[in-house]
């Protein structure tokens, strides 16, 4: 009896320690990740004078103002960058997902000669860092006459997104029981119908994960636009913000922070929206389990 009580106490104590440990780790995690956005918000609400003032705490805002946001919203270059980023990202996501889903379906399900090697090859291409590629790609893009054009990014971003998205989708499609396609084949479906009516709905969590990845690649890319774009009318947000709002050694911190926040809006909205649909276990009930 006492041994059992002792055992229960010991377990209880271990659980307490584990919980405290978890909370402490989480607190550190939250501080590290939330302090920068907090500081961004605070700074974006300050006027240039308040930012450069030496008195007061930099973590507080005395006279909150939306003037930085208003400046950006009415600043025509910023509007152009925003629209370019949205357009490039939307096309990249659509193109990447169409290619990835089709490639993953054929690689994981159609079992043609060499499909195994090709699957691995697709992933290996993802391991080549963009910094190694941008000079040879500059020549390719240049020979196509696409330097300083949003179309060069539309051409290049899928090369970054497709391998990893395909890899994610191969994993998801492979987890769908083979009997589902066989049942659909017998029910009268062709391969395209199996893909659109069975695989895509069932693999929706995977498609969302891959979509988020493709979106992140296109929205946040810095190196390629920096290398290939140089006029305001073709520029995207990531490079446009720093090239316009940093003039020599003058950093317009309030506007930079406001621009960062505005640029972060689409990812936040999209993540929040897609996460609702990111439901694990969608295949539950398909087969015995």
């Amino acid at each position: 009896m006492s041994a059992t009580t002792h055992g229960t106490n010991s377990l209880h104590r271990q659980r307490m320690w584990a919980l405290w440990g978890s909370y402490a780790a989480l607190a550190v995690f939250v501080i590290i990740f939330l302090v920068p956005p907090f500081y961004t918000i605070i700074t974006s609400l300050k006027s240039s004078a308040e930012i450069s003032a030496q008195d007061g705490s930099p973590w507080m805002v005395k006279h909150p103002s939306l003037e930085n946001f208003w400046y950006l919203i009415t600043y025509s270059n910023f509007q152009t960058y925003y629209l370019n980023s949205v357009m490039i990202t939307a096309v990249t996501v659509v193109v990447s997902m169409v290619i990835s889903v089709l490639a993953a379906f054929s690689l994981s399900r159609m079992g043609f000669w060499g499909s195994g090697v090709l699957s691995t090859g697709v992933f290996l291409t993802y391991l080549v860092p963009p910094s190694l590629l941008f000079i040879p790609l500059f020549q390719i893009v240049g020979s196509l006459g696409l330097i300083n054009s949003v179309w060069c990014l539309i051409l290049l971003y899928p090369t970054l997104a497709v391998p990893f998205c395909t890899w994610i989708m191969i994993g998801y499609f492979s987890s769908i029981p083979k009997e589902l396609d066989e049942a659909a084949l017998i029910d009268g479906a062709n391969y395209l119908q199996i893909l659109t009516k069975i695989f895509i709905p069932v693999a929706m969590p995977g498609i969302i994960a891959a979509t988020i990845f493709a979106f992140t690649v296109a929205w946040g890319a810095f190196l390629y636009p920096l290398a290939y774009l140089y006029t305001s009318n073709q520029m995207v947000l990531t490079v446009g913000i720093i090239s316009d709002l940093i003039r020599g050694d003058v950093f317009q911190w309030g506007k930079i922070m406001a621009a960062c926040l505005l640029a972060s809006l689409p990812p936040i909205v999209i993540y929040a929206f897609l996460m609702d649909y990111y439901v694990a276990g969608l295949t539950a009930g398909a087969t015995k389990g």
Partner: protein
Amino acid sequence: MAEVSVRKVVKEYDGGVQAVKGIDLEIADHEFVVLVGPSGCGKSTTLRMIAGLEEITGGEIWIGGDVVNDVPPRDRDIAMVFQNYALYPHMSVFDNMAFGLKLRKFPKDEIKRRVDEAARILDIGMLLERKPRALSGGQRQRVAMGRAIVRNPKVFLFDEPLSNLDAKLRVQMRTEIKKVHQTVKTTTVYVTHDQIEAMTLADRVVVMNHGIIEQVGTPQELYHNPTSRFVAGFIGSPAMNFLPCRIEEAGGGGLLVRVGSALSIPIPAARTARYAPFKNKEMVFGIRPEHLVERREVGKAGFEPVELLVDVVEPMGMETMVHFFVDGAPVCARIDPATHAAPEEMLALTADMNQMHIMEKDSGKVV
């Protein structure tokens, strides 16, 4: 509705492994045929070749009078029920059942009529709006059957449909499958490794082993007249007892079976001529546990007394299994639960030698 014909069909995988080695099988219209055999015997491969899910290496498959070797599954007018149900997880039960009809562009009211009719037959009318994840195993299997029924195909194919269900549900669903077949009468090919399922469901059972058909027959034929040791051992539970033996003269023109020095039992006069050619040869004597009963009815032709030392007694309620060793070989008897059999004691039994089998030692062929 259609007949199915499998002619000299071979399935060879990469690397030269032959899963099916040139089998022939004729299945009549409306017939319920069960392919049964141990794992790896080629029964599922045969079914999948009929379905069109596996390519055929050689031979021909005919459905309804047409060769379908190169016809894709969707054009074979078959329906298949899988072991793990294979329901579309994102669709409701109604949509699962209607999927094949929608693809074939049936009018909406016809789809609804057929789904409702199948749901009525299978008693799943109240589940039509649910998703598969909200169903129990038995309900999922019913939906899978419903998906097959609504199509009103020429042939139903079942690939071990009850293997994932618990024992009680399996018995219940077995009855339902039989009832459905009695209602819709579609030609059915059913694969299982469970010989009880095979015996209870089939009009004819096809016993397969190592990619060949060992025997085709009605359940009664397979039970009473197996043609090989494999079939004799596979059909029946517990399995038939096999004892190495010699056929010897018993005097007066009769024969007896001698199992080592431990046991010799006279062979019924009606079988003397049949076994005479095998006199003094090494053979295998086979007798089912249910044909070894506690001593009674001695004196009737073919009922012979035997006395054996009991090893283990297993009471099972409605019957008791008693295990012995005869000349080193295990023997089981299925006897009345009121038995007084006890371990390490002699038990007087009666062997119904009218039900005996003699097999060739090497080929396993029943003579």
